[in-house]
């Protein structure tokens, strides 16, 4: 195998890497479109803080849901 072959190999390899990662980028964009992140409402951290505070005043209480009223 001579050096000219290596030039071809390097060009093909670089294009191959680019092409494959481009395809993956497109696929990922589609996946994100198909499975979008839904609004989660109250964050887990906020829920934990409210639960802890509430339990301090009312021991034994279990918080299952916190709803934000606008």
């Amino acid at each position, binding site marked *: 195998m001579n*050096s000219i072959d290596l030039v071809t190999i390097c060009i093909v390899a670089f294009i*191959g890497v*680019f092409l*494959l990662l481009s395809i*993956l980028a497109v696929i*990922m964009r589609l*996946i994100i479109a198909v499975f979008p*992140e839904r609004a989660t409402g109250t964050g887990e951290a906020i829920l934990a803080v409210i639960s802890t505070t509430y339990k301090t005043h009312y021991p034994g209480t279990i918080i299952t849901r916190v709803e934000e009223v606008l």
Partner: protein
Amino acid sequence: MNSALELLNQSGFANLTWGNWVMFVVAGVLIFLAIKKNYEPLLLIPIGFGIILANLPLAEMGSYGEGIIGLIYNSGIKTELLPPIIFLGVGVLTDFRPLLGRPLTFLLGASAQLGIFVAALGAAYLLGFTPKEAASIGIIGGADGPTSIFLASKLAPHLLGPIAVAAYSYMSLVPIIQPPIMRLLTTKKERAIDMPQARPVSKTAVIVFPIVTGIVASLAIPSSAPLIGMLMFGNLIRESGVTERLRKTAGGALIDIVTLFLGLVVGATMDAPHFLNIKTLMILVLGAVAFSFSTAGGVVFAKIINLFLSQGKKINPCIGAAGVSAVPMAARVVQKFVSDETDGQVNPLMPAMGPNVAGVIGSAVAAGVFLTLLS
């Protein structure tokens, strides 16, 4: 008396060469850098001690010898076993959300592989390495230790030691190598581009990602499957949320055990006859070239992408430098560089993590392509 003399003659002391002493110094430098400078200590200490073991005359503790290190080398490196297991652990430890939130940064991970091909061509054309050796040297530009070991063990096992040391050394030198290149290739205005937050990524998307990527990449380049397949398997373990024990083992004990063996065995490839030659010096120089061109490739391509993006959607070209794998150090270097340049106004750590993890995939794919075309 004769027995005592015979014993002395059969000792390692009587058989030490100047080359062994030089290698002890090399080992000492690596161990010093690991302990004092905290440069990749988890790897440089096993590598450093492996060098010491390999240079103990008559002890048969080199990777090419008949002893236990040789056994680990033959069953762990020659069989391609250890690097993919490292990739399994890397997959467990890697969060691909920054990449999924900005799929465009996949391209930066690809463009930052430029140095691999530049160094490979330089090695073949300018320095007379064979194509297989040149490809193994070039992959240093991918800034990915396990990938470098994986490819070198297949294409140029006699150069495994210097290639591994160059790869890991340059990875720890990212904070020194990359900032001048970023400064040279970007304007102050470009460095001040503050990117908007990436779009949020759903749990389903992060679970689908490793499955789809594993299938697509392995079908496209089957020889990259050992690396990509294990990387994506590890990531699925992480993201599934139902395999906590496997996640802890693969990202903890398993990767540590394999790192121990890998470092020791790679160090033990560096006995004096294999390491002390002009080729080693050339590999170290080419490694720096590869790294620099990869960094430049990422930055320049980010600037090219910006030509097609509207104002407000432009990306900070410095994040292209993070495309050279070396997770997460390259992203941290970009963050520090940009933050320092903008007095803390712009902090692109999360945007830089996108190309950073894309670079891991990119270098593994590049290694797979080389394997396919050169094996």
